[in-house]
């Protein structure tokens, strides 16, 4: 009986010992195998697009930039970009790598066009010193479909969206975009301060910073001046606003089919399928009647500091005040003093640490929102060799047409000559 017990014990042991382990906590391939396979699959997908990928990079700092990327199996990528005319024309080959960071990642690891946006050298990026445009060149895979890949920057959180290109895209995508970009660039050659977007009976004052791709719309709503600023990128159809602009139920999402009309010095375009134009104008589309008084009444700490004199037709400090020896800045001091019962303002010329001299004038406000200065006299001694520049400045400051006052920030204003809008000064 005991013998039988022992024999059955052996039998149980034999069966138990050789039973297969069915409790594998991670069945199938090891994590490293899966990771390798994933990286290989991503690379195969990137390289497999024979016409390359259309890409839009949205830096964390705003705006968007378009690229055409062709990945090859030898870890090289050829790219074109709409960053400037040169990058749109000539392609550049650099290296890339797929690597397992915290997530599978695509690294552009030698310099190419998309690194321009991330370059901390502000003269290259056109962004902030030390930071560039807050863009990335190392991305992790976020979502992947056969024809599109979305990647997220690992350092700044920029977004890069790739869409598989067709043969036609490969030839036309960047050239088409570059045409819109260069058509819009002409706005920088407009000599007047005001740029107006006219479309089907509506008019908006716009200002466009083509270097950082920001656009501002100014318009009146219920008697109050409103501004709306957003950044943009370019598609093959034109300029796309990253946030749509809406005014009383009318929405603009894109400025399409941009074309420069050199004869009329205007940019023709389409908004929502209807024709529109952007042109330089001598008067603003809408005037903020309060701006002039706000400007006069609320100087920060009593005075405005001006580091530049008048800008004429886009040329900064056209009177070249900076050529005066030791000239530091201008100080505009509203209500500086009173003479025979007349309160006057001072435009002080600062040399070293103190105001040495300056013209004094009396402001008046017109019903259409202008501020007009009438010359009262000069305070201080003007050295003989300074006289021509000071004289020219004073004459410009006290033109009889006066200035439109445009609020550009919480405490900052531009005064724009109401004579022709080709001369302005920033406070």
């Amino acid at each position: 009986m005991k013998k039988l017990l022992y024999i059955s014990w052996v039998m149980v042991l034999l069966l138990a010992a050789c039973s297969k382990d069915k409790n594998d906590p991670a069945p199938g391939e090891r994590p490293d195998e899966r990771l390798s396979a994933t990286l290989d699959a991503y690379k195969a997908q990137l390289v497999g697009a024979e016409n390359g990928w259309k890409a839009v990079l949205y830096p964390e700092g705003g705006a968007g930039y378009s690229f055409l990327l062709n990945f090859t199996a030898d870890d090289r990528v050829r790219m074109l970009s709409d960053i400037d005319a040169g990058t749109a024309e000539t392609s550049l080959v650099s290296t890339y790598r797929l690597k397992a960071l915290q997530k599978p990642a695509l690294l552009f690891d030698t310099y190419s066009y998309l690194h321009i946006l991330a370059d901390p050298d502000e003269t290259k990026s056109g962004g902030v010193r030390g930071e560039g445009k807050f863009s990335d060149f190392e991305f992790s895979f976020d979502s992947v479909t056969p024809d599109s890949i979305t990647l997220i920057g690992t350092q700044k959180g920029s977004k890069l969206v790739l869409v598989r290109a067709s043969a036609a895209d490969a030839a036309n995508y960047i050239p088409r975009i570059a045409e819109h970009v260069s058509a819009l660039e002409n706005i920088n050659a407009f000599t007047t301060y005001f740029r107006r977007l006219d479309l089907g009976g509506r008019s908006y004052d716009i200002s466009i910073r083509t270097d950082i791709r920001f656009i501002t719309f100014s318009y009146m709503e219920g008697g109050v001046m409103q501004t709306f600023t957003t950044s943009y990128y370019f598609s093959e159809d034109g300029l796309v606003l990253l946030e749509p602009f809406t005014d009383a139920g009318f929405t603009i999402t894109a400025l399409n089919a941009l074309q420069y009309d050199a004869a009329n010095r205007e940019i023709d375009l389409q908004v929502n399928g209807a024709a529109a134009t952007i042109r330089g104008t001598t008067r603003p589309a809408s005037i903020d009647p309060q701006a002039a008084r706000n400007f006069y009444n609320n100087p920060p700490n009593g005075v405005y500091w001006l580091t530049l004199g008048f800008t004429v037709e886009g040329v900064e400090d056209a009177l070249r005040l900076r050529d005066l020896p030791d000239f530091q800045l201008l100080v505009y001091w509203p209500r500086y003093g009173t003479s025979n019962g007349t309160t006057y303002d001072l435009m002080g010329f600062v040399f070293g640490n103190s105001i040495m001299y300056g013209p004094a004038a009396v402001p008046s406000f017109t019903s259409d929102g202008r501020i007009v200065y009438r010359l009262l006299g000069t305070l201080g001694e003007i050295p003989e060799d300074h006289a021509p520049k000071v004289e020219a400045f004073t004459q410009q400051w006290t033109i009889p047409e006066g200035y439109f006052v445009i609020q550009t920030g919480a405490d900052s204003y531009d005064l724009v000559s109401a004579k022709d809008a080709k001369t302005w000064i920033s406070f």
Partner: protein
Amino acid sequence: MRLTIIPFLLLLLSVGLLASCSKDEDNPDTPLPGLGGETWAEGPTDTWLFQNFVVPYNIEVKYRFDRYEVALNKTLAPVREDKVIPVMETIRQTWINPYTLVAGENFIKTYAPKQFVLVGSAQYNTDGTIVLGTAEGGRKVILFVINDFDKKNKPEVKQMLHTIHHEFGHILHQTIMYPAEFKTITTDYTATWYLSSLQEARSKGYITEYARNNPDDDFVEMISIMLIEGKAGFDAIVASAPPAAQQFLRQKEQLVVRYYKEAWNIDFYTLQSNAQAAINAL
């Protein structure tokens, strides 16, 4: 007796059975991604670096951007690949070759920092200043602003060599210490060296602002400036300092020359003229 032995044997048997039935599916041969260093399809730049730096000197030059080799919190740009060979060629001509001429092939092979990391942009500090080069413990040297490199721009080339000579100087004196009297020539070393101007540092007998940091940095700054400026340039710097400071700088110069002779059997003035000739030949 028999019955007690049988359970014991059974116990042994069962242990044996359990052990022998373990499976071999958890095979450690599965390759881990990234283990054993990075790999990529090699191009002409990789081949050139391998032939000119890895094979002769066992120096690795990392030009493909690797976030983990640099400051994680800084915005940096990678190098342009077409700048890599000109930069490293210049380094070979102006740093390695002058040493090889006076000290033989094996000197650089033995003591050179083993890794150069190239970065395209500068590294920007929060105060607006920029970093041009850094080094870690005599092993790794990071060179910045490679994308603006132009070997015709002498001040920039000298700036880059300044970093390399400085770090290499540290390796040398950490291998064989310099004469102890160097530490007592001038004694107003300070950790806040950056608060004083170059002029002030020179008037106290220091060749650069950073030389005031501590005697070690003083020593290697002397080496570095003497090699990048050459004899004539160094003499001009000394001549521009006040008389008392001139004497200190000359004493330090003599100790550097003595150190190179005694520790490494290198004639410093020959090395200096080789280095100058190399810079002038660019």
